[in-house]
């Protein structure tokens, strides 16, 4: 029981409570969505066991990406082109840094292509949504994070699965609000850029270090892309289809009997 609590406290209960508090006591929706990525950090620090100021491993870069992305958001919030360029540059630099320990032993062309695909996705999707001042359906993003958490946990890393699960737990409060208030969305795309960046980096880490299958990786990438560029109705359908296919593919294609 104690072990179970240890698993769900940082990945479900703490982020859920913080998210409810943020939603309940925020002065405005804009403030809430702006702070949203920050309330993921307590879970992150808890799961890592310490504050990784100097990154030594891939997961140590996650919080730097979130902070960096939020700073860029603040600096260029009205200059969309610069914002997209700097956000993409930040993700590219961190992706290369994260993959370098693997690439230095063996230059893997497939891996390089996959990373370029992620960077291209980030650039086009972020550029489009930010420029159009578009809205991102939070429910769709919640499904993406929850799906990735489940896939990575089944794929072999409970830590990365929990990190993704923690973000899903934060987003689910806003997703419920979105669904119950029957609004198309509650959060502007610009506010969710750090969350999107976090998803992309976590996905690459899962692919490189946990070795989730390539098709699963592509499906989870499509799930996010659908959330960003599709119309709301199609976004839900595409995201759910991609995530469910990714989970089923992993369940059917491998021995996933849990031993945790």
């Amino acid at each position: 029981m104690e072990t179970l609590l240890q698993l769900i406290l940082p990945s479900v209960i703490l982020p859920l409570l913080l998210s409810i508090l943020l939603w309940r006591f925020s002065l405005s929706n804009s403030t809430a969505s702006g702070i949203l990525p920050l309330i993921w950090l307590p879970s992150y620090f808890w799961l890592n066991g310490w504050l990784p100021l100097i990154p030594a491993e891939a997961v140590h870069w996650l919080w730097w990406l979130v902070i960096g992305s939020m700073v860029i958001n603040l600096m260029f919030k009205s200059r969309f082109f610069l914002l997209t360029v700097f956000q993409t540059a930040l993700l590219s630099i961190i992706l290369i840094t994260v993959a370098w320990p693997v690439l230095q032993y063996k230059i893997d062309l497939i891996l390089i292509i996959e990373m370029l695909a992620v960077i291209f996705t980030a650039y086009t999707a972020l550029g489009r949504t930010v420029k159009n001042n578009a809205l991102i359906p939070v429910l769709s993003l919640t499904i993406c994070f929850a799906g990735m958490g489940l896939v990575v946990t089944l794929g072999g890393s409970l830590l990365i699965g929990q990190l993704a699960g923690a973000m899903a737990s934060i987003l689910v409060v806003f997703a419920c609000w979105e669904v119950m208030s029957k609004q198309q969305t509650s959060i502007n795309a610009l506010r969710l850029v750090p969350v999107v960046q976090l998803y992309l980096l976590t996905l690459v880490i899962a692919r490189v270090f946990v070795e989730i299958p390539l098709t699963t990786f592509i499906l989870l990438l499509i799930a996010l892309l659908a959330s960003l560029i599709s119309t709301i109705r199609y976004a839900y359908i595409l995201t759910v289809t991609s995530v469910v296919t990714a989970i089923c593919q992993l369940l059917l294609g491998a021995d996933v009997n849990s031993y945790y």
Partner: protein
Amino acid sequence: MKNKITATTLGAAALAIIIGTGPVSAAVAVAGSYTIDPDHTSVQFSVSHLGTSKLVGGFNSVAGDILLNPQGKSNIEVRIETNSVDTNHKKRDSHLRSPDFFNAKQFPLMKFVSSNVKYNQNNEPVSIAGKLTLHGKTKDITLSVKPVGAGKDPWGGYRAGYDATTTIKRSAFGMNFMQGGVGDEINITLNIEAIKK
């Protein structure tokens, strides 16, 4: 005919096993340079699981060099591939290789390099202090050594065997994940067989 072949094959296999695994002698190892024989060396570890039992595992890929010199500078280096972790459970091994624990993609090698080797009155190594690099971190550890035997092997070479043990805290090497379920203290045992160069 078939039975005869089977009997001959079995006889040869039994002979090979006896020759291959039979003790050479229990003498004191002579000073000199040795190479660790990966086929007859094992690295095992045990760790508490949920505080109720000990889980035992090992690494299948071990290499290294030993220079024994009781009168001068001794040097021991052991290299272990973290990707070769084996706990007799495929999914668990995959989890152990992930960033949750060994992060084998980023840190493919675990290495021990000695800094000080202590010998007993019979010039047998009994304690080896050195640096263990694991998970990107290097820490001082000390191995307690028990000589097992040494002598000529059936192929004209010279072999020496040692059992070495130590206990480390995985948190000291930045492996903090699942501290409640998986114990912090790891008992490590190396059963080394080395061939004289």
